Structure formats: structure tokens, C-alpha cells
């Protein structure tokens, strides 16, 4: 009798199941090929593209960390740059004053960014998503203002410069000053970080996050303390944004307040919307499109952010699932 009621739902399920099967087999293969291609990039592409590739990887990680709270938990943060910048400053200061091996600077950056996220998150996840958006923007700009004004520590608007990359640590002998080597280091770290993030999204915790993004109230009535889970997601996202910022500082050769500004927070938002918040790789895809577009557009106009704003508005109005999302939706529905 239950089958009689659900004939239509059952056939829809079967159709979705078939295309998902092909999907499960294809994805690991495509990903392996992609990573192999990325690893081979320095040998194949012109020098310039090593820089582009490094930036795409770092920004992709930044956007993916943002998407843990946006796409998976349903909270739109306009202050994610605070953690990116925190990571960049931490690494820059540690390299400048203590000449620590890079790997320890990266880990320390994750810790400081996570702590900052714990403080900002504590106040921001208490209320609904409207408040969350406002508060993350406001607190993010507080961090920006502090970096600007606390000259003795942050060197004001000039930021931290003149720090050098020495060794990587862990006994590895790497010539980090060589952009191709740094690119490969970034690639390995970003792949590991992405794998960890992916695992989190697939875990029980990740399931709860997805449920929260859809219907926080129902989750609460299942006995879950929604606020604590939102905060945990926010802190994890902050830590990975900090890692991205930490990788960015040596690449950028400067950690300055620009990295903390709200317009920096706009970037992962746009990348994620561009690629599609519904897929784990959406933000990475969006970062690639974003950085390539930026490289191209800034060659003939300074007003790249204007283009960015218009693209964001159009995507939200007409392509809410993003470029990758829309493509995949088409493929899956066929």
C-alpha cells in the first residue's frame, strides 16, 4: 500500500540513482587526472602561469573554507577575510621576527585564525542569518581597523614586508624561493586541506551542518545544539581560511590591511557563487574562473571590482547554482 502511494517518488529516485552511479566512478578518475595535470604545470606552462596557478589554489582553499559555513551550514559571512588576513599576518610576523620553518608558521596561523574565529563566531552565531551577515562584516572591519591603527605591531597600512622564506621544516630540503617549488608545496598542502574539508563535509558532523543549513529549527528539535555546531563550523572555516592566508603571505610578499578589508571578503563569496555552493569543488572551480578573469580584465581596466559586483548580481539573479553547479545539474538531469 505504501508503494501505491509513492509510485512517482520511486521512479524519480531510480533515475537519480542511475546517473549517480556513473558519477561515483568518474569523479575520482577526473580528480586524479586534474591533480596530475596541476603537478605537471610548472614543467609545461609559461612561468607566468605558475603564479596564476598558485593564486588559484590558495584562493580556492580560501573559498572552500568559506563554503563550509555558507554552502554547508547556510550562514553567509561577509567577514571571512578577517581569518585570511589573520593567517597572513601571523605567518609574515613569524617569518620576520623568528625565522621559523614555514610549516610551523602555517600551523600557528591556523591556530590564531581559529581563535579569532572563535571570538567573532561566539557573538555572530547567536542570532539568525541576517544578523550573522551584518556582524561578520562589522567584526571583520574591526580587525581591518585594528591592523590599520596598531602601527607598532602591524606597521599600519604598509603592512609587514621583508620577511624571507627559509626552510619548510620537517627535514625537507626545499628551495621555497623558487616559484615552481612554492607552487608544488601549495598544491600538496591545498590538496591535503581540501581532503580534510571534504571528509568533514561527509562526516556525521557534516550531515548535521547540511541539515542545519536547510532547517535549523528542525535540527534543534532533534536534540542538537545548533549554535554550538554553527560555531564549530565557523572556527574550522576560520582555521582553513587562515591556512590560505598563511600560504598567501609569502606568495604576495606582504601582509597588509587590504587582505582584511571587506572587499577581500567579497572574493570567496563571489568565487563560491560563481562555481556553485552546492558542490564541494564549486569554490575551487569558481576561484579558477575568478583569477583567470581577474588577470584578463585587469589588463585593460582598473575597475575589476566593478565587474565583480555586476557578475555577482547577475549570478544571484539568474544563475544561482553557479557555473559548475548549472553544468552538473544539466548533466545529472539528462
Amino acid at each position, binding site marked *: 500500500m505504501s508503494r501505491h502511494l509513492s509510485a512517482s517518488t520511486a521512479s524519480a529516485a531510480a533515475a537519480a540513482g542511475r546517473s549517480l552511479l556513473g558519477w561515483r566512478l568518474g569523479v575520482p578518475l577526473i580528480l586524479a587526472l586534474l591533480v596530475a595535470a596541476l603537478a605537471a604545470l610548472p614543467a609545461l606552462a609559461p612561468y607566468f602561469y605558475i603564479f596564476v596557478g598558485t593564486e588559484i589554489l590558495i584562493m580556492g582553499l580560501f573559498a572552500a573554507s568559506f563554503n563550509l559555513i555558507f554552502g554547508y551550514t547556510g550562514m553567509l559571512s561577509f567577514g571571512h577575510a578577517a581569518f585570511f588576513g589573520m593567517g597572513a599576518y601571523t605567518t609574515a610576523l613569524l617569518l620576520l621576527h623568528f625565522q621559523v620553518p614555514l610549516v610551523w608558521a602555517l600551523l600557528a596561523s591556523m591556530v590564531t585564525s581559529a581563535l579569532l574565529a572563535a571570538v567573532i563566531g561566539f557573538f555572530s552565531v547567536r542570532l539568525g542569518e541576517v*544578523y550573522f551577515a551584518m556582524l561578520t562584516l*562589522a567584526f571583520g572591519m574591526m580587525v581591518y581597523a585594528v591592523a590599520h*591603527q596598531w602601527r607598532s605591531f602591524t606597521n599600519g597600512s604598509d603592512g609587514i614586508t621583508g620577511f624571507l622564506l627559509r626552510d619548510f621544516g620537517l627535514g625537507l630540503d626545499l628551495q621555497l624561493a623558487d616559484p615552481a617549488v612554492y607552487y608544488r608545496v601549495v598544491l600538496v598542502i591545498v590538496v591535503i586541506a581540501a581532503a580534510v574539508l571534504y571528509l568533514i563535509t561527509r562526516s556525521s558532523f557534516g550531515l548535521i551542518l547540511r541539515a542545519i543549513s536547510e532547517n535549523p529549527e528542525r535540527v534543534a528539535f532533534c536534540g542538537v545544539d545548533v549554535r554550538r555546531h554553527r560555531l564549530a563550523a565557523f572556527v574550522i572555516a576560520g582555521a582553513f581560511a587562515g591556512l590560505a592566508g598563511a600560504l598567501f603571505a609569502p606568495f604576495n610578499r606582504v601582509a597588509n590591511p587590504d587582505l582584511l578589508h571587506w572587499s577581500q571578503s567579497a572574493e570567496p563569496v563571489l568565487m563560491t557563487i560563481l562555481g556553485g555552493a552546492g558542490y564541494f569543488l564549486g569554490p575551487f572551480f569558481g576561484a579558477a574562473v575568478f583569477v583567470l578573469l581577474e588577470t584578463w580584465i585587469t589588463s585593460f581596466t582598473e575597475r575589476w*571590482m566593478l565587474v565583480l559586483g555586476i557578475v*555577482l548580481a547577475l549570478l*544571484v*539573479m539568474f544563475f544561482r547554482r553557479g557555473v559548475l553547479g548549472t553544468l552538473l545539474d544539466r548533466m545529472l538531469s539528462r
Partner: protein
Amino acid sequence: MQSFIAALLNSLDIAMLLFIIAVGLNIIFGVLNIINFAHGGLYMLGAYFTYALVARLDLPFWPSLLLAPLAVAAVAVVIERLVLRRVYGRHVTDSLLLTFALLLIIDESVRMIWGSGIHTVRPPEILRGNISFAGVSYPSYSLFVIVAGVVLLAALWLLFNRTRIGRIVRAAAIDRDMAQTVGINVPLVVTGVFAFGAWLAAVGGVVAAPMRAIDPGMGDRIIIESFIVVVIGGLGSFPGALLGALVLGLIHGFGGRYLPEINLVLPYIGMALVLLLRPQGLLGRGAPA
């Protein structure tokens, strides 16, 4: 005592300016359920339009006070009809994203048209001097801002509590569907409210033009400050906007004078305290959205 009075007067002109901005933000939120991230951008447009009219076209200040806000309201009508209208009924995230995109667009357009430098507008002749008050010399323009704020406050209160338009808007704020069924043209009200909120932001921009630096960062600064105001006062609350503006004004006026080294983070500390003790804001009602 004199420095106390000076700090108090300083607080009040900032507070009045913040009130004008925050109340517009609140009115839009009340009816559209949107937090308008571009509100600071509209404020900035008000200031730049004034600059264009006064410093470039050599118009006097007073007609600019009328013209610039109307021009911004017209921009707002276009924004609401062409952009925001498309995401009503969707998840609240989409409207947040859209107004955020508008913030980027307005910010960059201003940089493109007027450059990144600082511009200034001189106050109208009659308000250029100082007025002595209880032994304190005070710029008459700041006094004008305080008076203008109080007049606007009274006018808004009358508008929303004593007129038919006010009743219609409040009906639409409480329940759009219900308002529609009793014959209110809700889409028109929504456009009108958004334009009115933008008009208020622009009035703030015009008023601020002779007092604060006109630069492309002014919109960012004011939007953060008005967020702090509405969080402190209570999102959507009219008296809350006033109280929040006064609190933040006092923090600025006295913090700048007595605690200059942490002046910058004081507003955030105030906001954090309110969030801890009364998350819905000092005058906010019920569960916050």
C-alpha cells in the same frame, strides 16, 4: 565641565547623523525584510551628488539638500524594480548577496567617476561660523545637524503614527499578504519604502558632506556604524535606532576624548556587550531574525 559639554555636543551631531542612516535601514528591513548592505553606498552617493552640485556646478547648498536625495531615491527605484524584485520570495541569503553586490558596484562606480581622493564641500555661508554655548565654542553647522536630526525625527514619527501612508506602510510591514487582500498596492509600497529609505540615507550623505571627508571609503564606514546602531538598538525598531545612535554617538564623543587609544574598538565592545546581555537589542522585541 567644558570639555564634558564639548564631548556631549560632539556626540549629538554624530548621533543625529547615525540616526538618519540607521532609521532608513530599519524602515527598509521592516517592510522588505532585507538588510540593505548598499545603504552606505546610497549615503555616499548623496554626498558625492552634493559635491557635484555644489563644488562642480556651483549650486548653493540648500537646493542640493533637496535635489541630491531625490536623485538617489530615483536610483533606488531603479534598483528595487530591476534588481531586488527578482529575489523576493527566495531565501534571505539571495537578497543579502544582491545588496552586497550593489555595495561593490556603487563603491567602484564612485571611484571610477570621482577618483579615490578626498573631496570637500563647504557649509552654506550662514552656517560657517561658531556659536558659543555655555562657554564652549561650537561650529554652527554641527548645531544645524542636531536641529535637522530632531526635526526629521519628529517628522518621521508623525508620518508613521499619524498619517494614512504611515498606517499603510506599517500594515505592509506586519503582513504583506494581508495588506494585499485589503486592497493595498503592496509592490508600490515596497518600491516607495525602499526609495524612501534611500532618500533618508542620501539626506544623511548631504548633511555629512560639509562635515566629514568625502571619499570612497565613507560608505563602508557609515554602514558598519549603522549596523552597530541597529544591533545595539534592536533591528527594525524605530526608537531603537534613536537609542542606538545616541549610544554610539556618546561612545564616539566621549571615547575619542577620554580613551583615545582604544577609541576604535569601543563601538564593537559596546555592541558585543549588548549581544551578550540582550541579543535582540536594547529596544528590540521578541526573537531576533
